[in-house]
């Protein structure tokens, strides 16, 4: 296992109480696995990715452990995380467009970044140039200011910077959302290439766009209202989802070629619960067409088939009786 997360619980402190944005999540990522993290806005996917790298107020760590390559990672301690960040766990942030210092030439900014990590930039120059070739950027960009680059180029540049120290885990947070369709594909395929070249060992790709994950992810983890809903191989999540939320979510996505008069798609009625005072039991209960008495208790996230985890009483009971 490359990454193991065990009962991680992270809340946001507000004046009205704690917002339970990440409420006890347990999962693992294998070596070389690209895991997609999907869910609607406010389901806790960005909280999870931030918790693994930089936990700052109002985020509050409650419990849980994180292991990377069998070593425990002190996610609750921002200072102790310093040597781990960038070197072992790295992130391509959501607004990579604005992630670079606008007053520095890119090459100088990278040198400063490396100095802060006590690495001489000349040692890395050759590798940096090789990486630029890999993503199809000219070496001249190092002498340019970020403003001189287009959106897709900036995104690729940030990807190169984030992975420069060969981190074990790379977190990519909504990195394709702001890009055009054709650039999106190029960036997504580059992520896969980074894994194939063993620049990064494993990856978490956070996105609300499931069709992108279908193209590049090995497995998909679906979240809902701060809880894990289902994790399985990509093909299984798309074609044989088991949790009612995943099923409804996949069914509501329009596919290229389907028109409304041929097949009317339906959304999921209702809204996600507020996480200040989330309902007890299964958090999808109120919108779930299959909900029954048992759902007042919280369903555990268990393996119903090899490498297929879900948190739904219907599935768990079906599994137990089978």
């Amino acid at each position, binding site marked *: 296992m490359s990454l193991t997360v065990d009962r991680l619980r992270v809340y946001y402190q507000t004046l009205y109480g704690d917002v339970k944005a990440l409420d006890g999540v347990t999962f693992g990522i294998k070596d070389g696995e690209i895991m997609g993290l999907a869910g*609607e*806005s406010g389901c806790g996917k960005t909280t999870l990715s931030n918790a693994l790298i930089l936990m700052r107020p109002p985020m509050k760590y409650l419990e849980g452990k994180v292991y990377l390559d069998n070593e425990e990672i002190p996610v609750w301690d921002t200072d102790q995380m310093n040597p781990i960040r960038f070197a072992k766990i790295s992130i391509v942030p959501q607004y990579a467009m604005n992630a670079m210092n606008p007053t520095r030439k890119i090459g100088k900014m990278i040198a400063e970044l490396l100095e802060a990590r006590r690495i001489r930039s000349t040692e890395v120059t050759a590798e940096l140039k090789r990486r630029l070739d890999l993503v*199809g950027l000219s070496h001249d960009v190092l002498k340019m200011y970020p403003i001189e680059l287009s*959106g897709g180029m900036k995104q690729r540049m940030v990807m190169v910077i984030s992975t420069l120290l060969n981190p074990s885990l790379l977190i990519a947070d909504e990195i394709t959302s702001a890009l*055009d*369709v*054709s650039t*999106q*594909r*190029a960036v*997504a*395929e580059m992520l896969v290439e980074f894994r194939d070249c063993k620049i990064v060992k494993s990856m978490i790709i956070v996105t*609300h*766009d*499931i*069709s*992108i994950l*279908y*193209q590049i992810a090995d497995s998909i983890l679906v979240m809902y209202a701060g809880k894990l809903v289902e994790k399985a191989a990509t093909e299984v999540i*798309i074609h044989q989802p088991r949790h009612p939320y995943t099923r*409804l*979510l*996949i069914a*509501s*996505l*329009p*596919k*290229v*070629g*389907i*028109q*409304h*008069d041929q097949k*009317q*798609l*339906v*959304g*999921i009625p209702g*809204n996600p619960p507020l996480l200040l005072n989330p309902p007890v039991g299964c958090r999808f209960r109120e919108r779930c067409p299959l909900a029954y008495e048992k759902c007042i208790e919280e369903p555990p996230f268990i393996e119903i088939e090899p490498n297929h985890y879900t948190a739904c009483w219907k599935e768990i009971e079906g599994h137990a009786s089978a």
Partner: protein
Amino acid sequence: MLALKEVSKTYRIGTFGGKELHAVRNVSFDVKPGEVVALIGESGSGKSTIGKMILRLIGTSAGSIQFQGEDIAAFDHARMKEYYRKIQGVFQDPFSSFNPIFKADRIFGIIRDEFYPRIGEKEWQEKVNVSLTAVGLNPEHVLNKYPHQLSGGQLQRFLIARALLLDINFLVADEIISMLDASTRIDVLNLLSDLKARGLAILFITHDLSLANYISERAIILYRGCIAEMGNIQTVFNHPLHPYTRLLMASVPRLDKKWEEPVSVVDGREATLDGCPFYGRCPVADKTLGCDRFQPPLAEVEPNHWVSCYHYPVGKINLR
């Protein structure tokens, strides 16, 4: 009903407005009553500019926009008001379309003051209720609330309900579902298809091809302010001809097919203002055809299928 005739828009940019940005170039198309037309393009393709020009939020630099045969640029204040009774717009971000310090139903009050000053209270309430019900909202649940108390999907439907109060027959929907979650997004799309069944014409502006395909009859593909391809949406999607449309179709992430065939993108060639706008990235650009010097005209290559590319002269389709 609505027709654009060789419409162009040029923005002045740079420190002293010394440079020009050609956001929309020579765009002509029309929208018939009850038709849903998808305007598809990447960021910077001019799709939102076209929507804003139709709503006369900005003027045109050249060409004319005609509504029921009359040029909207010539409308005076009173005529403009009549125009807005017939045509309304809904935009991308529902959260910034509302003033957060007022209750959300204030947008209905503004409509009442402006367009129905003499209507009775009871009659007005009835009208609001009908309109809210039409967009699938329960008036009791959504009236008297502040914007932050409503979800994005509810706010977006609120804005559509506001447009419906005016008995419109044309709606400019500019990326109205991009900000919504997958589970609520489809409800707003279905609402648009219901409205279409009632005879409303919609200009559906989007960058998402699968959403456009779900609801529209006709597609217009824009690239750098020019129409690259236009026609029946099934034809354009199943047999894209323009190299740009093909690139788009090969890149769109689909749930039923993985990316297999590699896409070839050319970088580094400079497109000139006179030549084909896609010249800079086109894999099949050919100088002998004049791709670099002259902009190809939009030609009808088969009935109701228009392509702007020298590889497809009128009436002749090879390459399938």
